[in-house]
């Protein structure tokens, strides 16, 4: 899987970096609508444990997903720092709960690590690339993975 970010131009160069457990992740800033504190959510019956429920964002109803739980990373750090990143994935608006939102980063082209070096196991389904920033290795999260695979299978079962 090759990174789409090795030759970025313009605003695509910017990422929002956040943490899940001790791991650092990033998503393209372009897809981020806003960052909010963790809202009250209405749980939906029979949902996977990482699906926190639905929330009211200024009149619009969105799903909130616990990202750390979804990628099975142990939570770490101060609960007060937990935040929800509202993302827009090709028109689908969702809230992603993360342990903390760190900063906006602007990695150089040469900071990106080749994806071939990263093929380790099945867990990297959500990895869209990696870059190195200061001493950290930041994983670029593939947002499309949030709604594919398990969710669709789940939905298909219900529709049947």
């Amino acid at each position, binding site marked *: 899987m090759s990174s789409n970010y090795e030759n970025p131009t313009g605003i695509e160069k910017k990422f929002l970096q956040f943490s899940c457990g001790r791991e650092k992740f990033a998503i393209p800033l372009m897809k981020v609508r806003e960052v909010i504190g963790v809202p009250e959510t*209405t749980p939906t*019956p029979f*949902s996977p444990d990482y*699906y926190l429920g*639905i929330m009211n964002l200024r*009149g619009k109803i969105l799903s909130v997903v616990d990202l750390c739980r979804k990628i099975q990373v142990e939570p770490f750090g101060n609960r007060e720092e937990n935040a929800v990143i509202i993302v827009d994935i090709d028109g*689908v608006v969702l809230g992603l709960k993360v342990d903390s939102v760190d900063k906006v980063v602007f990695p150089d082209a040469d900071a990106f690590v080749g994806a071939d070096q990263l093929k380790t196991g099945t867990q990297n389904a959500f990895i869209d690339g990696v870059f190195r920033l200061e001493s950290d290795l930041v994983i670029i999260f593939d947002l499309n993975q949030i709604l594919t695979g398990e969710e669709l299978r*789940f*939905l298909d079962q219900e529709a049947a």
Partner: protein
Amino acid sequence: MNAADMCFMKKRSFEDEIRSDFIEEAQDNLDSVEQAFLKLESGDLSVVDEIFRLAHNLKGTAKAVGFVHVSQFMHSFENLLTEIKNENISVTEQSMELVFLLKDRLSQILMQLDQDHSCDIDPSGEIEKIEAFISSRPRSRLQNDSRSRDGDVKKTPQQKKKDETLRVSNKKLKNLSDAVGELVIMQSIIGQYSKSSTDINFVRATDQLSKLSKTIQELSMELFMVPIKGTLMKIQRVIRDSSKELNKPVEVLIKGETTEIAKSTIESLYEPLVHIVRNAIDHGLEDTPEQRRQLGKSEIGQIEISCFHEGGNLIIKISDDGRGIDPERVYETALKKGLVKKEVSLSDNEKTSLIFTPGFSTKKNVSTMSGRGVGMDVVMKNIRELSGHIGIESKKGEGSTFRLSLPLTVSVIDGVVGRVAGQSFVFPLSQISETVLVGNHEISYVTGLGHILNLRGESLPIWVLSEALGINGSDPTDSFYGKSVLICENAGVRFGVVVDKLEKQQQVLVKELSFEVPDRDVYLGSSILGTGLPALIIDLAKFYSNKLDGLIQISHLSEPESHMEKGA
């Protein structure tokens, strides 16, 4: 001419309809160019184009609908306008007098035709006047206007329409409508605060706000409303075709075609209406006009469709004066198909209503039209999906009346807010027939069947919602005492749903749930309650049909081998 050829609508034939449309549109157009005529009179020649376009359109359309006299009249009028435009005839008191005379005459002609499409119109007098006028004017200038007549016509008449209407995307309308819905709910919340307020200014202002927001809501709903006439016209065509196909002459009486309904509803309504109407002609009406005659009925079948608003709903009644439905026959068929149990006593009306049960069909040989597995159960399903109701009243030998009830607004519904294991849920009021507070003695538990409620002698299956939804928070062995049961009905079968507490009844704005929400089809949508938290709106009918999986219907106590089919 055979009996089938006599199939005509009581008031109008198809041709009559388009003629009426023409007249109406012509009158509208004529009204809208009134200003142009006045401008022309004051010497503004630029408006001649507009008037010319109108005349040209009327000429063509009049001819198309068969009003040749009007067409001839317009042709002559066109000539006059061309002369005026090319300034061969200057704007004078005399020329304007003629122009206005012609305009008035046209109005008069349209009115006469409106009364009677076959009215004899003789435009020769006016035509002569025009010809005389044109030829009497000395040609003051050579025609140096390069624009040809065809060139003028290239400007399409759409330009006129632009003044009257505005094209707005559905999305924008929906956004507005959603925002208005939120406004209404927010305002009702403020209204609650004002009830406990002693600040008189606040209370007064809140009252005014309440009235204002109601007006805004009505206006916003009106944006989506279109007259049901269009759909009814299509249905009339279906009736006419069916009648011809089956050789059953039919007369249709339509009432309330100007009744307005939400555009989205109307699109979904067409199919069910077609089924009902075809059913009425195919099964409802007697097989031949002779049979009808022998019964003392007119040979022509009578179908009446009436639409009106009643208490926030659109009611559509479709009646036929055919043979009616025999409740016993329906009951027998239902018994045979295992859709109902012998011991359960049903009234005649309840028996007739069994036709709506999924899996039911009266005719053994499926006729081309109303058969093919598309029965009243599908109609019921469609109507349910629109959050509506359908019922039937029938008298054997006299006819049947189908009564559809549809909410006028799809996005705001009356809901009951109930508390289940610490969480609030909304239940559509339209799906609830009653609510009861229970004590333990009314509920028994039968292994293999679950909980049964004894409601005034009737045994209903009930489900505890907190268990059914897998929400922890209430002890499953909790007594039922003090809990509320929502009694619902789906396809003729009644059942109950137990909630911890009923909180209140309020209007809620239904927000569609996005696809990624798990189990989304069990919910009608979600809504934001006064607390700001979203609440799920549970579709009780869906809930019930989901629950039937693997569950033996209570009425089959003595027939363990038969199972209720899963709801549609």
